[in-house]
């Protein structure tokens, strides 16, 4: 995947002092969206998609992404999403071509050579597809996300990520999941360390945590039937806290205050809302989720925003669309975007 470096030279400092000097501060994102707004957006969008036989759905998806970006605020400013429906349409067409070719090869192999060969082909394709699509989708979404006008970007390469992903996936498979924590850490490290805001990268180091994660994971799974699943919720909250504690940007560190109790209550209320309203409260639940995520996340340290310069990279939507079509749920952007 080629990346054009469209960085512009840093302009000379303005004549008058205009921004406060970087200080130690605590920032926390907040979500300003309302369930009623999302309800309107979702149903109007669904209706228009229906009567246009799906054509409007691309604009609908862009509208939803816009909404979540624009209503998430950090340090006084909102995020922005600059993807377009046309990009999604082109990406979908390309993705359909890719899928058609894959299906063609699969069928061809099955008839011409042997069904077993075709099945192996399918397995290989799927094994490769997850990391490829993950990177492609991340690259596209990050490239279209900005804050204070500065774009995010993903600087990793698919080939490098596949080298991290495939062995990890394989070992996790043959160890029945025991290798899972190492797989999770190595892939998360790659993804986050290659995520950039402007010209500055994020940083995540999960080394040393894997053993404890495996231990706690096993305990939580064993206790699951006795605690009606609560042990799993507690474990999830612990993982969130530990993982964010080791994530940083520049000289500021992230922190998550998610607790098992808070997470459990959150899920409980979500569940009740959905049941009582027969699913109609879905927009309110999504808003609650975003709010919960933002409320429990913070970034603390010295952040010199003036020193972060624009360094946008290009990215096509093809792999993002392929991920959507295969419903791979690859969006683990950790930024709630």
């Amino acid at each position, binding site marked *: 995947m080629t990346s054009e470096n469209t960085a512009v030279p840093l302009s000379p400092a303005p004549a008058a002092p205009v921004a406060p000097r970087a200080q130690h501060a605590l920032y926390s994102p907040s979500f300003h969206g309302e369930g*009623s707004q999302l*309800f*309107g957006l979702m*149903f109007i*969008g669904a*209706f228009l998609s229906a009567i246009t036989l799906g054509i409007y759905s691309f604009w609908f998806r862009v509208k939803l992404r816009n909404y979540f970006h624009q209503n998430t605020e950090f340090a006084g400013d909102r995020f922005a999403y600059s993807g377009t429906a046309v990009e999604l349409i082109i990406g979908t067409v390309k993705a359909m071509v890719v899928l058609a070719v894959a299906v063609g090869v699969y069928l061809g192999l099955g008839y011409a050579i042997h069904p077993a060969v075709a099945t192996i082909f399918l397995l290989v394709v799927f094994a490769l597809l997850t990391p490829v699509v993950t990177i492609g989708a991340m690259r596209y979404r990050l490239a279209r996300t900005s804050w204070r*006008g*500065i774009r995010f970007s993903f600087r990793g390469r698919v080939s490098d990520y596949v080298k991290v992903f495939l062995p990890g996936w394989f070992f996790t498979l043959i160890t029945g999941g025991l290798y899972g924590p190492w797989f999770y850490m190595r892939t998360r490290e790659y993804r986050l360390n290659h995520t950039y805001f402007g010209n500055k990268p994020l940083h995540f180091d999960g080394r040393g945590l894997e053993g404890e994660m495996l231990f706690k994971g096993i305990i939580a799974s064993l206790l699951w039937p006795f605690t009606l699943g609560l042990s799993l919720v507690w474990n999830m909250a612990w993982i969130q806290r530990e993982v964010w504690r080791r994530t940083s940007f520049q000289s500021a560190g992230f922190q998550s205050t998610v607790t098992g109790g808070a997470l459990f209550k959150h899920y409980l209320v979500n569940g009740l809302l959905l049941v009582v309203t027969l*699913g109609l409260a879905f927009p309110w639940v999504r808003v609650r989720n975003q709010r919960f995520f933002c409320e429990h996340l913070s970034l603390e340290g010295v952040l010199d925003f003036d020193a972060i*310069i624009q360094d946008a990279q290009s990215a096509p939507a093809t792999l993002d669309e392929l991920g959507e079509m295969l419903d791979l749920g690859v969006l683990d952007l950790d930024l709630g975007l």
Partner: protein
Amino acid sequence: MHLAPSSFRGHYFDGKSAARLEVDIEPRREGLHFRVSAGAEHLWSWPEVRQVQGFVEGEPVRLEKGGELPEALVVGDPGFAHALRHAAGAHTHRFKLPSSNQSLLQKGAFAAVGLVLAAAGLYLWGIPWISATAAQKVPVEWESALGAKVVENLSEDLADCEDPELKSTVTTVLERLSTTTGSPYTFNVRVLDDGTVNALAAPGGHLVLFRGLLEKMETPEELAGILAHEVRHVTLRHTSQAMLRELSMAIGISALTGGMDISQIAGAARMLGSLQMSREAESQADLEGLELMLQAGFRGEAMIAAFGALGGGEELSWLSTHPDTRARREALTLALAGRTPAATPPALPGAEAWKAMVARCRVE
């Protein structure tokens, strides 16, 4: 915060760094005029400005100027949108006031109702009509090939009943029925050695009978009743229709939900729906099957008796693929109303011989 009636405090971003500058912005006739605190004055003319945020309540207005990596102005004051539109002259239509939460909620509710009506219309009329029309156009060879595959899949782990007398009896009945219909399909039947009480009609004329069902039939004539029903499923192309229906609904639902993940609810709705339509198809196969029986020379009472043997009583018709057998028998009895066969039936073994050959089917 207003500093002068038409001046607003906001922020400026130059698109080159993440630095945020405080500015005073004044919408004027010629454009957007703003001054970086104690610094240079800028003017953005209206054609250059576009609004990208500020469409819902509480969202600050964000204006951009430039191409891919634009400069931006952000103002949180809710009065700014009004001032913008007031000053923009010919360009007013490009700047929007935010929609209130209440209006979004209302519009959403209307859209939801519209959606339900559209979906209901499509489901009740659109899709059935499309699938029925399309099903009639599918070439017989395609149906036949598909049907053969379906049967192959179904019978993978099961053995066939090999008893020659049984096979010849079943084939005789089927041949009489299929020649009476005069349809283009080449019918064939397999009898599987399994206790399931069921019979299936795959597209293209490939029928499958289970031993369990044969055991419930007192005479070959009763079997004719079941076969007539299945033959009608084939000539009326019910299974092809049902498959096309499933396909169009799957496409429709994913177009509708474009992003929303309620696929599980949709999946359940679809299952119930396709069962509902199968009930109509079953009724049609019943009544036309009865006609076929009479034309082929079999007694209609045999069909009714066959259904009686199969019915397990009052089933919950909601959740089963067949309307409860009692209602079906009643409908058939009404339709039969004392009519007699229109031809002489083929020579068939009697009840005892039939029972014996069914028992011989079992592969030890």
